[in-house]
């Protein structure tokens, strides 16, 4: 059977339904859950109101938090010595950051531009207003 062609409202509704289903699925996946498996591999869901559920979740959360903590501490350690001989992340952090724009020559941008133009042999750009006849 041929599917009925949808209009713009129908298409928009379809997209919204898809999005809603995705959000619901993501929420469901994020929900904590506990499964136990017997020796045959048969899985049983531990019900949230069941005995030991809270304890199981709390223990699992603490295990994950412990590993998170260790990984965060590992990431904070520098993998190679920072430029300038700083050996720890703290020392590296204390160094002043370079400006993200304007380069590092310490000169104003206009001056650097005219220097570059001079190197290329180009005419210097006019920066002031043009002289008028009545100026003289």
């Amino acid at each position, binding site marked *: 059977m041929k599917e009925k062609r949808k209009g713009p409202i129908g298409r928009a509704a379809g997209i919204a339904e898809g999005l809603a289903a995705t959000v619901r699925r993501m929420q469901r996946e994020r929900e904590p859950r*506990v499964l136990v498996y017997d020796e045959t591999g048969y899985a049983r869901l531990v019900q949230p109101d069941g005995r030991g559920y809270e304890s199981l979740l709390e*223990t699992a959360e603490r295990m994950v938090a*412990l590993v998170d903590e260790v990984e965060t501490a590992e990431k904070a350690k520098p993998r190679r010595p920072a430029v300038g001989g700083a050996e720890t992340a703290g020392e590296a952090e204390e160094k002043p950051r370079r400006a993200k724009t304007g380069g590092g020559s310490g000169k104003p941008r206009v001056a650097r531009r005219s220097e570059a133009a001079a190197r290329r042999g180009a005419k210097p750009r006019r920066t002031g207003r043009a002289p008028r006849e009545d100026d003289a």
Partner: protein
Amino acid sequence: MAGTLTPERTAERLCELSADARAAVLLDAAGSPAGAYGLSEERSGELAELARGLFEAVDRAHRDIPGGPPEQVEAQVERGTVYASRTPHWTLAVVGRRGALSSLMLMDLRAVLRELEGGPQVRRSTAADEEGAAGPATEEAAAGESPIPELGG
């Protein structure tokens, strides 16, 4: 080759097998840590303590659940998932990433514990076009190459 895996290397072996494993700990029958990977020594003691507590909580919860005694447990929380498996001699617990595939992780746990107890070694396949990796010529050899010990020879 059976019997080559030591308790000290077991947790590391599991983390080698599974890219989603972040840290693992092995406990002996008395509940003492026998090996860990991914954590410092003092932190692995904490993880071992928690792993022991996990199965104690499982045994408490099991009274309300029909079926045989739980051998494996999977607990998904917000920032990760904990998997644990036990045999009469060993308990192996691993903290995995949130997106880890449960069936694969549980299979790896079983396979590594089986290897530790003298079972067949978990073999990692290599790509056919890698240098020196000759493909299996016979069906028997191919079965032996299987990374799943149950299917292997």
